[in-house]
């Protein structure tokens, strides 16, 4: 893509219009979306609004992504209060640093997850210090099995979300195969679909997941 693109947010009372000027040379605005509020905006439109500093947009981004961010932090740190603190911190940090977010470089969710990853790692390092202190005081050593890495945990949570969001019948097929351990012939029978169709959906779904996961983890860490 050699086109430069930028976007303009037009807000009138009760309505938000997102206008993306796709071709700088033509200077012809192309309407990406028009909404009564951000609730109906696509993720791409939200990304633009976020980068432009629209606070109502921030709220919608929060509404959609806070559960994901919270779940990652909560599971990684096994603490609901740490989960809440990190969720708050991620959105405040992201909002302040929104100038660093570039729409064309990747998804907003991926960017937020990248910030989350750093916050969790910071907290885990601090805990490591605490743990060493406790061990020094109590003169104990705790040999534990290697815990799941943060990256793997994030991938699992993101994949669960993506599998849950796949459209029917693709989502049902993958959920039955992955989460309920059904065989493809069983799934075909249950959903009353030809076996070849089921397999074809499963292949495409897997490739879709690979693309989505790459998108989320594409931000430099």
């Amino acid at each position, binding site marked *: 893509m050699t086109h430069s693109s930028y976007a303009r947010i037009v807000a009138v009372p009760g309505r938000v219009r997102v206008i993306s000027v796709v071709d700088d040379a033509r200077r012809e605005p192309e309407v990406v979306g028009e909404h009564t509020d951000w609730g109906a905006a696509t993720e791409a439109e939200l990304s633009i609004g976020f980068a432009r500093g629209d606070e109502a947009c921030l709220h919608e981004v929060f509404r959609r992504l806070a559960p994901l961010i919270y779940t990652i932090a909560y599971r990684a740190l096994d603490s609901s209060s740490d989960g*809440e603190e990190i969720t708050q911190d991620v*959105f*405040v940090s992201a909002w302040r640093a929104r100038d660093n977010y570039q729409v064309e470089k990747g998804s907003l969710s991926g960017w937020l997850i990248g910030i989350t990853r750093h916050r969790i790692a910071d907290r885990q390092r601090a805990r490591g210090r605490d743990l060493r202190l406790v061990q020094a005081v109590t003169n104990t050593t705790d040999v534990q099995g290697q815990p799941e890495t943060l990256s793997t945990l994030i991938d699992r949570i993101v994949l669960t979300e993506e599998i849950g969001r796949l459209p029917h019948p693709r989502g049902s097929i993958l959920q039955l195969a*992955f989460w309920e351990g059904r065989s493809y012939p069983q799934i075909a029978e249950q959903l009353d679909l030809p076996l070849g169709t089921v397999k074809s959906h499963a292949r*495409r779904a897997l490739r879709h*997941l690979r693309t989505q996961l790459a998108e989320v983890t594409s931000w430099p860490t």
Partner: protein
Amino acid sequence: MAHLSPDRLADSALGIDDPLTAAEQNHLASCAECRNELGELSRIAHLGRQPEHVAPQLVPTDAIWQSIQVQLASQATAPATTEPSAEPPPSAPTIAELPRRTPRLRSWFLVAAAAVFGLIIGAGITTVVVRDRVEVASSTSLEPLPGQTGQGTAELLRDRGRPELRVQIDAPPSPDRYREVWLINTDGQRMYPLGVLPDDGRATYPLPPALAGQLEGFNIVDVSIEPYDGNPAHSRESQVRGVLPT
């Protein structure tokens, strides 16, 4: 031979259809590109079988969102020196990292709640009463938080110039928990634990000397209900709260 087709790679990762032929396996052995792709697809198929669900209904989004608003608003009105001039990109792990303190911070949550409830109801009156060289510099009523009962007052005293906080609340203690009095900063970042509140709900606490002047923003008086867990942090369950006028 040519690269394995996307379908064959996906089939192999999913365990669908025929196993890879000898020729396909030979190709994989010599082609890093196909090997990497199959590796990633297999990893996804493996991780996809271990779901980790997000449960939006379990996430306290309202409370977090209020805290975010308070923090953004307090930053917007803060002096320019506290405004981060050049935020590092997310690759730098230090953006707006809260400074580490003891006890660990839970104050954002409280301040959020304070912003919603306390600031409205805690409009105390500033009076200066000279009583045995103890001045009441300011005072506020303490009002119950939602779901709590109780009422009280907090008075900022100057006993021969030393700052003290006198707290009286009329609320029963919980049987297996104790109460603690805190001064919370309106910046949403800092708090001081003043001490345990006796069961009769009356106590006077010396304040850190640096707060002798204008409380330095530590205007929110908070009484928390604490479990006997040895954790020095605020439990985040507050019984009553008020804001001392400056």
